């Protein structure tokens, strides 16, 4: 209603800023730690103090590693993460989109049973499937390969992507589909020419969700990929910390590096996020 600056609105802004501050506290810790030296960062009582100087060495070590000390950097693994996350995100989004399309607009007999059964896949604790998972992947010849891991992320992404897309497509008027049918398009033609181009907001939500989860996922990655040159950045990040002495400044620097791509996704796609949620997953 009113938009003038009154005490009420000032209060609202103050609250928002306060919350933003609280939200940024851990980020501050992350950032300042990454700029500290090892001795500084070890001293937890100086947690809040800003770094004594701009010690960028941690970033360098995290990125390039220290080859002479047997420490691998994150650099090559960042690319692995991209090779992993991008196809896995795209494929699972596409599958979700296809499923959502079929399950919302072309219900065949049994579709109403299949959907909840698919959804339930979202809820299995992943630690408990590690062993059959590795065995299955080996059996189909994908053990230890990036494609195996992509497959895993695709499979466990199906429930959530299907859910989001199904809800999203449920809001697309059925009239559009019928118009396209009369115009001469078949089930696939309608998908490609009508539904798919309309799916941007849905894809944004799904991509943000999937990208974040796959990018940050650790357990599958570490169990399924043995070759260091294939491992994604999360595994490499964990490896920055030794088993006995952990150079947290370097780990934090690495964490920041590892968070950059997801952050970029948020910044560039965030605008559409609410819109996508509005159209889709909100209905749940």
């Amino acid at each position, binding site marked *: 209603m009113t938009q003038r600056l009154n005490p009420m609105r000032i209060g609202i802004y103050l609250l928002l800023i306060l919350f933003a501050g609280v939200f940024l506290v851990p980020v501050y810790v992350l950032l300042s730690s990454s700029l500290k030296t090892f*001795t500084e960062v070890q001293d937890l009582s100086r947690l809040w103090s800003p770094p004594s100087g701009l010690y960028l060495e941690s970033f360098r070590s995290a990125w390039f590693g220290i080859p002479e000390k*047997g*420490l691998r950097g994150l650099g090559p693994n960042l690319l692995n993460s991209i090779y992993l996350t991008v196809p896995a995100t795209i494929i699972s989004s596409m599958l979700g989109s296809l499923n959502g399309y079929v399950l919302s607009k072309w219900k065949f007999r049994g579709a109403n049973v299949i959907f909840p059964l698919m959804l339930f896949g979202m809820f299995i604790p992943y630690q408990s499937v590690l062993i059959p998972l590795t*065995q299955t992947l080996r059996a189909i010849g994908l053990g230890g390969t990036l494609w195996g891991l992509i497959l895993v992320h695709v499979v466990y992404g199906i429930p959530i992507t299907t859910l989001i897309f199904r809800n999203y497509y449920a809001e697309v008027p059925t009239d559009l589909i019928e118009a396209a049918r009369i115009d001469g398009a078949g089930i696939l033609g309608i998908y490609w020419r009508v539904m798919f181009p309309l799916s941007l907001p849905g894809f944004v939500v799904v991509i943000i969700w999937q990208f974040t989860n796959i990018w940050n996922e650790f357990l599958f990655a570490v169990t399924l990929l*043995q070759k260091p040159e294939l491992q994604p950045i999360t*595994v490499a990040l964990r*490896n*920055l910390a*030794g088993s006995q002495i*952990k150079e947290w400044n370097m780990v934090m620097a690495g964490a920041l590096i590892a968070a950059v791509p997801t952050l970029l996704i948020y910044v560039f796609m965030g605008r559409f996020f609410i819109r996508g949620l509005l159209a889709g997953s909100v209905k749940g």
Partner: protein
Amino acid sequence: AAPAAAPTEEVPAGPTGSIEIFSWWTAGGEAEGLKAMSEVFAARYPDVEIINATVAGGAGSEAKAVLATRMQAGDAPDSFQVHAGHELIDTWVVADKMEPVTFIFEENNWLGVYPPGVIEVLSSGGEIWSVPVNIHRSNVLWYNKQVFEDNGLTAPASLEDFFDAADTLMAAGITPLALGDSGVWVDLHVFESLLLAHLGPEADRGLWDGTTDWNGPEVTAALEDFARVMGYVNADHSALSWDQAAQLVVDGDAAMTIMGDWAEGYFKSVGLTPDVEFGYVPSPGTAGSFIMLSDSFGLPKGAPNRDGAIAWLTLCGSKEGQDAFNPIKGSIPARTDGDRSLYDVYLQSAMDDFASNEIVPSLPHGAAASEGWVTAAGDAMTLFVADLDVAAAQTAMAQACVDAGVCQ
């Protein structure tokens, strides 16, 4: 830089291809040591490429999950790091996943250069199951020399000394013992020193084969002392890791900490010098005994490149390999013929003790008991440090021994 010395051990004929070496040495001195050892290997076997499959997290954590999952899927690495002793034997050997490596010991005439106590830990059913690369000592008390001097104290030899010193320090407003048990094993680590102090080496070893009664009065006394010790530790112990606890000693906030000798690496990494800024003695009441743990490599059945793996194991057990690895890692060689000049003052003293002391296997580090037992003991300790209920803890510890199939 690979040492130029000619190989002293016999080399299996020309292995080629690549070998995958699985370990949790991803960073720090251990990674650097591994790297040094790999370089020696590369010089010796130029045709074999090492795939350094490292997973952080240490035994019992992610690395173990990864290894177990892979082994069960029939996807064994060529060789993997494992704590020597029951962690290897009760987990992998009983599961028939390992090949004995006795033949490597025999071919290289190592049986003479490894102390019998070590061979005993490595053996089961008349076979040796892994090649140790190093030895760490568990029962070490580290202390801040300045703080001790300021309070007119000397390093405590017995538990009575320890508690006296602790009282003095408390009065001076200094935390007597720094504890950082955010990792569960730390509680067990402290406790095993106390057990040794009360039982002595002979009875202590008996705990792990069922000959010493877990319900006995010495165990009770050890638990009671542990409860007493908890009165002298920093209040935020469960928020700290062992190295953060060590930092308390560095800063002079605390005077002592009981930790394995990898702590020396930490003190050095923050710029302290052994015997100058910090001192070390065997944990109170354990002088003359050496609680050992050892990182070793085994030969899994179905290793894709068995010859390469054997070459690797041969190097791990060699003097050259161990002298490349240990000075950097901060541990002592498992062999008795290490080149002392390569090691610092603390490690030299450890080498001396190792040669002369009674060897006792370590519980939390896989040498003394099966992983299931360690886990159960850890659970009991987790509860104990919270409620300090001696009777309950002793029952639980005894039960753990029964569940492990060792006690009746």
